[in-house]
């Protein structure tokens, strides 16, 4: 966790910072959540500290140091506490959240939290089950009743995508004390942040609203009182450094140079879970269905226009090394020991499907299921071991963003190189480079060496190259990131435009919400095999039920042991 994200945020979205932040606070994959346990001890007796820090609050507003922020937070909390409610109160992220409109409750449940964790978004859903148990189990209940403990553990234990917004109120909340406890537990930071972005008066006003909302929550989650007791304690601390600079330095204008904003992005990007990233996709509306082109199977393949992609009995097998960096020295040593470090990976096995022109296809599956390999095969990067892949059109290069070639070259030169790699002629590339350069809005930086760029700026370049090559087959991978909020909107609009033009769109995502919203068919791949294909809802349901069954099976296996 770093201070970059919160500091960056007000500059990105000065108007909406208050509304946008709560979700940030609730990122389950966020180290912030993970850090909560460590910080909780401080919060054991926060009140005296809080009163002390009232002075700090006003006395050192400009200090960006963490302790002051911590005190600030405590102070804000104390103020709110004095306002009447002895308990911690919080404000729910409401409709002023600019992103909120993009989230369905389902999204919140299902969105991926991180790229690499095998337990991605969808897999987290079955993660309720331990809570089910917790609710039923008296022993666990007792533990829950003890101040602090459960609230501390649960957010860490449950990195699911749920504890984001209040709209998530499935039956579980009523039934499960544990679940509601941590849902609630995750909310105080939201309030802290929101409140802190306001001026003092606004804070008071908000605190009142917050209290009202708190009562609402209490009403909803009756019986969760005991659990929600420790949350206030956790709340302010659980949010390590989300203090916006705008609060610490109220006199300063919030708008900072774009470069600075972008520069600070990387930390935030790493810290943000999948959800923020998916804003790009959430900005896209479901595509209007296109006219279906009648079957043209009588035509020779190159002349057909009804199909975008046809995959026939595709298998991809490759051999790779155990070693990240295979060296001659190690090879000799292995030879001495008679070992081999090569293994064969059957990435895809006997996959066949057709994609009609105008379709949006979602590809789901666990990590390592072969999704990215399939995309690479479709774009011709990895030729099949057997079977054929026919593609009507040029595939985009959105697989893993970053076509940056040479960091000592300027952004413009890298754009030209990217365009040439994509198959444009030199003249076209130079011509289009100007257009792309303008689109990235990097100003003078476009002619500076790429090594001076922040990673957000580099991401802009990569994204711009990828989307401006006018791909016929649009491929979007989940790891798509494009920099700050403004650029995300722009990127989202561009993607929508592209998607409407492209012959087909492939979307690899663990955010099952995006798949069901944006795609009109889905493919589920597991261990290189095509498990299901069809309507996104059906496929997603099947996928989720299998995951749940797996989880249960594993759990019961464990109990047997």
């Amino acid at each position: 966790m770093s201070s970059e994200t919160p500091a960056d945020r007000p500059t990105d979205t000065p108007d909406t910072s208050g509304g946008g932040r709560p979700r940030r606070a609730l990122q389950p994959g966020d180290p912030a959540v993970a850090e909560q346990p460590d910080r909780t001890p401080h919060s054991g007796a926060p009140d005296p500290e809080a009163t002390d820090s009232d002075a700090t609050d006003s006395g050192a507003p400009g200090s960006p140091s963490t302790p002051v922020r911590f005190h600030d937070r405590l102070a804000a909390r104390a103020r709110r506490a004095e306002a009447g409610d002895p308990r911690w109160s919080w404000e729910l992220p409401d409709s002023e959240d600019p992103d909120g409109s993009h989230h369905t409750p389902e999204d919140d449940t299902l969105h991926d939290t991180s790229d690499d964790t095998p337990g991605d978004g969808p897999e987290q859903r079955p993660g309720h089950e331990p809570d089910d148990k917790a609710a039923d189990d008296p022993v666990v209940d007792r533990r829950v009743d003890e101040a602090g403990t459960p609230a501390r553990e649960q957010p860490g234990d449950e990195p699911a995508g749920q504890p984001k917004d209040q709209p998530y109120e499935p039956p579980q909340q009523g039934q499960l004390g544990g679940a509601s406890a941590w849902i609630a537990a995750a909310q105080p930071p939201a309030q802290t942040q929101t409140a802190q972005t306001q001026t003092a008066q606004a804070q008071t006003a908000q605190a009142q609203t917050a209290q009202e909302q708190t009562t609402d929550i209490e009403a909803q989650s009756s019986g969760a009182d005991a659990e929600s007791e420790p949350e206030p304690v956790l709340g302010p601390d659980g949010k390590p450094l989300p203090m916006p600079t705008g609060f610490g330095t109220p006199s300063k204008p919030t708008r900072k140079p774009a470069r600075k904003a972008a520069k600070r992005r990387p930390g935030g990007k790493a810290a943000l879970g999948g959800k923020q990233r998916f804003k790009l996709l959430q900005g896209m509306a479901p595509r209007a269905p296109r006219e279906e082109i009648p079957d043209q199977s009588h035509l020779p393949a190159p002349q057909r226009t009804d199909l975008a992609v046809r995959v026939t009995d595709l298998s991809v097998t490759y051999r790779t090394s155990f070693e990240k960096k295979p060296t001659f020295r190690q090879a000799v040593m292995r030879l001495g020991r008679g070992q081999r470090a090569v293994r064969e990976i059957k990435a895809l096995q006997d996959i066949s499907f057709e994609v009609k022109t105008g379709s949006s296809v979602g590809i789901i599956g666990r990590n390592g299921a072969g999704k990215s390999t399939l995309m690479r095969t479709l774009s011709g990067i990895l030729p099949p071991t057997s079977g054929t892949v026919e593609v009507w059109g040029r595939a985009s290069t959105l697989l893993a963003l970053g076509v940056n070639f040479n960091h000592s070259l300027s952004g413009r030169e890298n754009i030209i190189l990217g365009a040439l790699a994509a198959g444009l002629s030199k003249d076209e590339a130079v011509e289009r480079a100007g257009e792309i350069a303008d689109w990235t809005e990097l100003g003078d930086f476009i002619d500076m060496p790429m090594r001076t760029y922040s990673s957000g700026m580099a991401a802009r370049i990569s994204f711009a190259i990828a989307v401006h090559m006018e791909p016929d087959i649009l491929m979007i991978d989940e790891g798509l990131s494009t920099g700050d909020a403004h650029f995300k909107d722009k990127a989202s609009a561009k993607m929508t435009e592209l998607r409407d033009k492209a012959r087909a769109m492939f979307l690899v995502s663990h955010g099952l919400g995006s798949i069901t919203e944006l795609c009109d068919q889905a493919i589920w791949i597991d261990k290189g095999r095509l498990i299901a294909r069809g309507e996104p809802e059906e496929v997603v349901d099947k996928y989720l039920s299998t995951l749940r069954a797996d989880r249960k099976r594993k759990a019961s296996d464990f109990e047997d042991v």
Partner: protein
Amino acid sequence: MAGQASAPPEESIYQQFTPHRAGLPNLVEYFRLVWRRREFATEMSKSRVRGSHDNTVFGTAWLLIDPMLQSTIYFVMITFIRGHSSSGPTPGQTFAHLTSALFAFRLCQNALSTGAKSVTGAGKVLLNTNFPRLLIPLSAVRTGFTRFLPTIPLYLLIHLLVGEKWRVTMIGGIFFLGCLLVFGMGLSALAATLTVYFRDFANFLPYIMRLWMYLSPVLWLPSQIKGKPPAVQSLMEGNPMYTMLGGYSQLLQNGHVPALHVWATAAFWAIASVVVGFLFFISREREFAVRVL
């Protein structure tokens, strides 16, 4: 990559990716694609040159100073340390031979060392763009050639300074230079592939190259191995550099047109290197996307 079945118009691109036959894609199609993307290789090479500031005044100066310093060191070594025999060439001739041969050898050396790291250094472009990978080592060879070019006028100057005259037959050197360049392309592709499998290959390369230089007619004249044991002679003559560098420096320095078999052998080595190097590279390039991270 795999057999793109058609060369379609821009509007309706139809691509068919099929398994490689015997590990190789359709070579005609492959080289057509290489040709179509040649501007990419050119630009990549240019960008590498720009990136290392070779196109600035001091960058270009360094491209001249570096080989000059190297030849001076070797000149000191072979004339003062090894000793200068009165029957052999004059110091001026030795220096002219040394510079011409060394500069040409450095062309190959550069191509090989830049090429070795080219694929592993290409990064994400390998993972997400579909293009014939052979362009990567080829662009490295182009870079090596760009760095070699300033030494041609340098040699011509040295040639005059040591009291030789420019001759028409010197033009014949272009053939051997071409052979060296093509030979370098094959080696570069080979080295690039090996580096993917053995990342420390580039570390061995300087030693291999130095040993190779000592075995090549750079520090000695082809005429100087006459009278050595036949085994040593055949070993020296089996070295591809023997004919290529020997013929090149002979033409440049004395204007002696080498025998026909020297030309033929040089051409043979160049073609053999390209065939072996390119085929090895192409047969392995499918794995690059999963091996290079």
